[in-house]
């Protein structure tokens, strides 16, 4: 009994740390890779590779330099974000299997595969020539390496530049560098447009970003999400708890949330079908009616998937934030 409890707790802590640990890893990744669109990555420096169609290519993923000998035609994606990236850059037809959590774009070849606890044999059964995941769990890189299958680890992005770099990298690795650059350029233009429209300076506006309720996990301004909301000059109320969590994802005290009086509340766990916290539910919490965001109906139910991924749909998230900011400041 005692052994079971201890192992449950260890696992639990590990699960809670997934977000922040992945984030820390992403820090390493950003040091190794450069934003797509610049021609400084190893393979892109050769003229042919710049066109995005010449193999072999070597990409600097977070798990080191990965060489892909020929254009992959049997890709397995174990990460929802990587799946979205693959289809956005035009590599969709080369994808043979995606993990159980990949659900966008519609019609992706969903399987029982898991990125959280990958089963190497199950992956190998698809005879992939490229595997992309967000973490190197269960000896994924070494194990598939023995089978001669290259693996790209594309961890949770720490910055917008990281997110763009990953799209570029996935484009390069699959022979779609040109389209990947177009995707990134479009994303940048759209995001810049939303920021222009809503304004980049809102010194008085604070927000509370709810990752989970009971306990109330949030994000500080230094996280990936914090930086995106920060484009509009907003400050997270979780910044006061920065010291308590190195990863930037502190568990906030409920009374602090109320006392901090956030002007906007973003709900990143909002899918009602999945038992999420909808704006209606949040507004009815005891004591929460004292929060300006609740009084002004500025409790925003985000699209959970878009708000938790760092792929090509980021501009949609920025648009949702921009609308809320415009209303709250107007």
């Amino acid at each position, binding site marked *: 009994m005692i052994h079971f409890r201890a192992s449950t707790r260890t696992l639990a802590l590990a699960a809670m740390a997934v977000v922040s640990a992945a984030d820390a890893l992403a820090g390493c990744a950003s040091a190794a890779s450069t934003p797509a669109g610049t021609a400084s990555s190893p393979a892109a420096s050769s003229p042919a590779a710049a066109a995005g169609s010449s193999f072999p290519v070597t990409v600097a993923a977070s798990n080191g330099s990965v060489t892909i000998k020929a254009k992959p035609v049997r890709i397995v994606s174990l990460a929802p974000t990587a799946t979205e990236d693959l289809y956005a850059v035009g590599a969709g037809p080369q994808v043979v299997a995606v993990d159980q959590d990949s659900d966008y774009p519609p019609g992706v070849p969903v399987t029982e595969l898991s990125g959280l606890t990958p089963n190497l044999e199950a992956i190998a059964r698809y005879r992939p020539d490229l595997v992309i995941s967000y973490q190197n769990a269960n000896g994924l890189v070494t194990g598939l390496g023995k089978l001669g299958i290259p693996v790209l680890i594309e961890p949770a992005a720490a910055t917008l530049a990281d997110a763009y770099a990953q799209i570029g990298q996935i484009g390069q690795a699959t022979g779609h560098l040109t389209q990947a650059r177009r995707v990134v350029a479009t994303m940048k233009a759209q995001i810049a447009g939303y920021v222009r429209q809503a304004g980049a300076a809102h010194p008085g506006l604070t927000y509370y970003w709810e990752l989970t309720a009971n306990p109330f996990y949030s994000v500080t301004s230094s996280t990936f999400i914090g930086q995106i909301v920060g484009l509009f000059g907003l400050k997270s109320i979780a910044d006061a708890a920065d010291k308590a969590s190195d990863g930037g994802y502190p568990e906030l005290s409920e009374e602090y949330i*109320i006392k901090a009086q956030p002007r906007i509340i973003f709900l990143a766990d909002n899918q009602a079908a999945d038992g999420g916290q909808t704006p209606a539910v949040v507004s009815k919490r005891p004591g929460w009616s*004292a929060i300006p965001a609740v009084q002004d109906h500025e409790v925003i139910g985000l699209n959970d998937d878009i708000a938790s991924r760092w792929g090509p749909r980021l501009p949609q998230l920025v648009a949702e934030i921009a609308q809320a900011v415009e209303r709250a400041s107007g």
Partner: protein
Amino acid sequence: MTSTRGRRLRPVWAYGVAVAFLVAATLVSALVGAADLNPVATLAALADRIPFVHLPSSLDSLDRAVLFEIRLPRITVAIMVGGLLSVAGAGYQGVFRNPLVDSGMLGASAGAGLGATLAIVYLGSAGPSAVPVAAFAGSLAGVAIAYLSGAVGGSGTTTLLLAGVAVGLFLTAVQTYVLQRSTQDLQQVYSWLLGSLSGATWQQAGEIAPYAAVSVAIVLLHGRQLDVLSVGDEEARALGTHPGRVRLIVVAACALAAASAVAVSGLIGFVGIVVPHVVRRLAGPSYRLVLPLSLLTGAGFLVLADTLARTVVSPAELPIGVVTALVGSPVFVWILRSTAAVRT
């Protein structure tokens, strides 16, 4: 041994200490928190609620909302959960004559975990509101299965405990399997498994109150029978007690107490095993004392632990299980060293 007799508190003193501890813990807890309410104004606002007392307080409406809708319900739930877990732990230790038993035994924690996981994974939008009920039912079902399995193997308490371990492992395996099939619910489920009093409401306190009252009353009424049981089944029979019947009643009541606690707090370990031992060290082994004192001390202990959880890294919080074990273990060892052993 004579010196330990001297250390042991007389019952009236033991009650006094336990009540004072609970009151002090509650007051401290009411006065501190991330919202940094003025302690004097908070005291005044609290005293103002006592009938026939009217005190002006400088707390504004926001501060009042924090105090009466967030902080006080959380303290109330902490008192209930701490008391329930401790009394259940003490009751089980008496039934099984085993000092290592706690409130999560006999498949109670594992059953609650499975119930909560099933609700979160399969009930979709109804999930969050169904979790307390599912955990409550799962916890009771876990104990029932363990009890029935153990009873088949014979009348010994060891058989029953071993059956509980087996049932617990089985239910945990099912829970892990279900969770593995639905990784997007991982965070929600693990948050629940870790245990937390964050987000406690008056409604929760009201919902578990009837079960808490009934179960605690039944356990407390069986103090004398547990004392008789402690000399052994044969001797207990000779003294006119039915060991099997007492065991069934107390196990059922303890299961109800633990299930009520688990429904609103998730799995909080350590309390149910440590508090009764501390009480025994201070007040002696009689269950007529150990049970009510565990109720009071456990309540105070969990209130203090939760106060630390929500203030040490304020405005962030620590998981309460971390605090109960991190602070509780050294204190427990210290108490073990500074007092002498007591039979369970």
